[in-house]
């Protein structure tokens, strides 16, 4: 019997997606381990996948030549690299580097398209999560960068959504009414 390569992360994945039906995603994904300091994505260079952080931590910079602005960190339970998919440019819009040894789920763009076409419910749950993360990042990067005491430019917002604050389930009618009436 073959070993379950996703074994220790199934609970996390089920929590994130709000379903135990993980195979449509996992059948199309691969695990990836990267070491501290290793670059996962390089600003403005080609990319073909998006990544979910299963363990460890990544940091994100926007770069121009030798200069950079640190946008923040991507913690476990958060995705990175999806902007290149949705904007169809297939180049990374930031540099993503492992802060510590990290385990990732790699989902190639072609596999995500296949998921959207063939497994709409799982894809929809995933899209819902990706939207929440994009909202978080847009809000986190709204202000101008600041200089830290060592002269490095950085953003003060938090790029990641803690696992326990992620949208585990779809909102349904109650959430719709809350939003319509402005009640939080």
């Amino acid at each position: 019997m073959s070993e379950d390569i996703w074994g220790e992360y199934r609970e996390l994945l089920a929590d994130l997606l709000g379903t135990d039906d993980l195979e449509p995603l996992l059948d199309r994904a691969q695990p990836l381990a990267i070491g501290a300091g290793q670059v996962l994505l390089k600003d403005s260079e080609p990319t073909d996948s998006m990544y979910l952080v299963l363990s460890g931590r990544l940091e994100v910079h926007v770069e121009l030549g030798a200069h950079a602005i640190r946008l923040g960190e991507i913690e476990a339970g958060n995705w990175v690299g999806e902007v290149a998919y949705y904007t169809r440019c297939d180049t990374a819009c930031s540099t993503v580097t492992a802060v510590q040894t990290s385990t990732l789920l790699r989902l190639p763009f072609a596999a995500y398209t296949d998921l959207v076409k063939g497994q709409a419910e799982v894809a929809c749950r995933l899209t819902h999560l990706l939207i929440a993360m994009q909202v978080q990042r847009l809000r986190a990067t709204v202000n101008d960068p600041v200089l830290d005491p060592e002269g490095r430019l950085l953003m003060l917002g938090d790029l990641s959504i803690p696992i326990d604050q992620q949208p585990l389930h779809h909102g349904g009618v109650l959430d719709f009414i809350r939003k319509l009436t402005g009640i939080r």
Partner: protein
Amino acid sequence: MLLKRYLSTLPGFAFMTDEDLDHIASAMKVEDYPEGHVFLYQDKPARAFYLLLEGVVKVGYYGRSQQYYNVRKLKPGEFFGGLSLVDSKPVMANYAAEGDVKVASLPLSAFLLLYQPNSAIGCHFQHVIATHLASDLKARHLALRDLLGKMYPAG
């Protein structure tokens, strides 16, 4: 211009069925607006989801020092207002017409009905929103790169 046909050409609508496009196009209202019309005000809630069809919409915001920054100009085919509708928080910038513009708008109530992911059209609509937000994120990163270029012109 036939709105349904126009929507079908936009990247985020790649997975929409013909019926989906009918529903969305019929829920949107197309109107002309004059120079200076403000669609969204910074720090106020959005009440509609907008799609620029013709002309230019300029985006600007007041920074921490109350200085006004012009950050971006939207071109036809770009959406705006989605972020505030998704998270029910205020808009982060002002969106105003630069010259005469034609804009399609989807009212908040229709947006929230479509944004429910418990239906095929809802899932397809979420793809539209994810595409719109990704485009905004990419623009944000480009703006930050431009800022770096201004701070370090020698490279």
